């Protein structure tokens, strides 16, 4: 019997995708025979833009690589610059950075939980979990001034202190999450329909996870104990006992399926709460930034020469930035890598042999965050001429289009 396959495209715009990315599936019946992945629909040229800006401007650009990771990218970037320029940051700033990063992890993981439930067609859980997420967003707004894009990181420290009066508010939020955690756990781990849809779905073996360089909860759910907070502790993580969480902590076995990824993320919620509590207890007094005057800092960075990498365990996995300074206003190289970049390849073994119905949850299970570079230069197909479209051109084109479709 010959296998007649047909192809269906998912993306660049599809209800199951929160960001543009294209998949082409070869389907036989309901089963996936082959996957073709074509990202790049969201390339914004951020690294290219960054190399035209000074280091402090890049912090805010890095924050906008992704709305959800808006603490992770500046964290990694600041560490890279500090390593390159040899700046030591005060201990109190290290603790504040960790608190903000862990609050971000809480909000990111709850956001993911909601999205995953939506992909499973379980919209009630989406609404309830996103309602629970509001609490941590309010806290972040209270601490930093913004719900996302916190603007708190600065080369050499942080821009805002956490005062004594603010600590009870943080504890209140942590208490809130401790209270509702058992409910969240009950919904995700004990609901029969969620178990039906996630167990043995989208399996990534440990070997594949290593081979495809998977990071973050995706790798940990497959049994790779990889967590920079544990392996190469930085900032305040060096003082805290952080352990990489693998699903066997709870269930005793590692399957590497979507269910395991849910377990890992839920347990990391608890871990984040504990980390913040420890940070609040041990937070030393002192300065929050190495150099308060920005002009002086810029001058110092302008004279710096060297290269450095900054790594941070973002909610989705390791986030790594490489910066090379060459006694100039702008960095010579800025390379930012978001965790999804590495998890991209692991989609293929996860999706092969699964059903169409599994596509949304498997895609969502690595918590994708598609962000990158430029698409302004276009090639004119008619005469083969290259041309950069300006805002004026685009406006002209859209006017033409409007005239064409409205008689």
């Amino acid at each position: 019997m010959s296998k007649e396959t047909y192809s269906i495209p998912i993306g660049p715009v599809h209800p199951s995708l929160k960001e543009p990315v294209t998949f082409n599936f070869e389907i036989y019946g309901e089963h996936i025979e082959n996957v073709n992945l074509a990202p790049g629909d969201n390339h914004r040229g951020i690294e290219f833009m960054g190399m035209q800006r000074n280091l402090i401007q890049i912090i805010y650009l890095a924050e906008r690589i992704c709305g959800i990771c808006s603490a992770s990218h500046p964290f990694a970037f600041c560490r890279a610059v500090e390593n390159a320029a040899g700046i030591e940051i005060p201990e109190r700033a290290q603790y504040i950075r960790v608190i903000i990063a862990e609050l971000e992890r809480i909000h990111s993981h709850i956001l993911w939980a909601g999205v995953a439930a939506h992909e499973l067609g379980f919209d009630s859980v989406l609404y309830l979990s996103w309602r629970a997420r509001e609490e941590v967003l309010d806290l972040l707004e209270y601490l930093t001034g913004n719900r996302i894009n916190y603007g708190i990181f600065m080369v050499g420290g942080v821009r805002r202190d956490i005062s004594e009066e603010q600590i009870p508010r943080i504890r209140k939020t942590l208490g809130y999450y401790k209270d509702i955690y058992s409910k969240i756990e009950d919904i995700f781990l004990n609901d029969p329909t969620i178990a039906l849809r996630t167990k043995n779905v989208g399996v990534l073996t440990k070997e594949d996870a290593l081979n495809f360089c998977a990071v973050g909860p995706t790798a940990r759910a497959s049994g790779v104990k990889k967590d920079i907070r544990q392996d190469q502790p930085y900032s305040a993580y060096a003082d805290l006992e952080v352990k990489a969480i693998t699903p066997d902590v709870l269930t005793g076995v590692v399957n590497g399926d979507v269910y395991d990824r849910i377990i890992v993320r839920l347990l990391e919620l608890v871990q984040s709460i504990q980390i913040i509590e420890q940070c609040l207890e041990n937070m030393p007094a002192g300065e929050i930034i190495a150099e308060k005057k920005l002009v002086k800092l810029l001058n110092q960075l302008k004279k710096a020469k060297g290269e450095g990498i900054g790594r941070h365990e973002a909610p989705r996995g390791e986030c790594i930035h490489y910066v090379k300074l060459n006694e100039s206003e702008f960095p010579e190289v800025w390379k930012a890598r978001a965790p999804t970049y590495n998890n991209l390849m692991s989609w293929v073994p996860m999706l092969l042999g699964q059903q169409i119905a599994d596509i949304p949850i498997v895609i969502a299970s690595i918590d994708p965050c598609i962000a990158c570079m430029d698409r302004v230069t276009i090639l004119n197909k008619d005469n083969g001429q290259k041309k950069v479209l300006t805002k004026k051109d685009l406006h002209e084109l859209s006017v033409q289009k409007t005239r064409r479709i409205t008689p």
Partner: protein
Amino acid sequence: MTSISLFEILVKIIGAIVIAFLGIVIGLFYKGIDRKLAARMQARVGPPIRQPFLDFFKLMIKENIVPENAVPWIFNGAPIMTLVSSITILLYLPVGNIPPILSGYGDIVLIIYLLTLPAIGMVVGGFASGSPYANIGAQREMVMMMSYELPLVTAVIALGWKLSQVYPQLNVFSLVAINANPIWGLVGPLGFIGAILLFITLAAVTPGELSKIPFDAPEAETELAGGILVEYSGRNLALFGLTDAVKTIVMTSLTVALFFPYGISHLLAFNGAFALIVDTLFFLVKIFLVMFFEVTFIRVAVARLKIDQVSFAYWIPVSIIGLLGLMLIVLDTIIV
């Protein structure tokens, strides 16, 4: 068959139009309530109750796009076919104490046949759209149709068989007869449990028939972007919306007619036209309650199942429950 006068035909035509109109209006109204209640259960505000009406009117003035590689006459015919067939079923169902308009011209076996027609219409429309998403949706709808027929038929046959044992002279499959003799009064304790199991079977079939979560694999928004309906727009989509509303009324009315055909007028000692109105209102309350538990509540409480899981659920657990119910009713009759 008795000869029908012109007047009777006229009455039936007017009645059919009235019932169709009421079915659509009440269906859309209930859809609004269903959405509002689901929203409240999900901690949302939800759309206003008249939202389905607004949707309908908006869709009617929208452009009706037929895809390039669709088969236009099938593509445009499918929504009409589904709407007409679901309205036809409505004409066979009793509303409160009012007998069905078309009583005497068919029975519940015909209804079961008619129930497959909207689904077939959607499958045909899906295949005619020429989109891979719609194709997959149509395949899934067919699989689902094949899966839920057995439990549905089991529930209906069991009731008819029981009725034929008690009143051999009746036309046991006519809905009027079933409506006049509620199952709960005819059976002993064993049969009572059997009837409950049959009710559960029908309750499980209802979301499947209506393509609601957890059995909405053919439309699966996050997987197939609407599945069967993906290419439909404008008037055609509005008609599918109406079909959905009418089908909800049909399935809930069927449940009410089979299992809860009680009126309250005799309890309150009303008679005449007033009793008719009270019973009709009570009927609306009953179908609302059935809709709430079979559709609204289930769809906010669970996740969507995959098509193989849907198929398995209908063929194995639901069918077993149905057959068990049938067996208990048979046992009840034999033992007594």
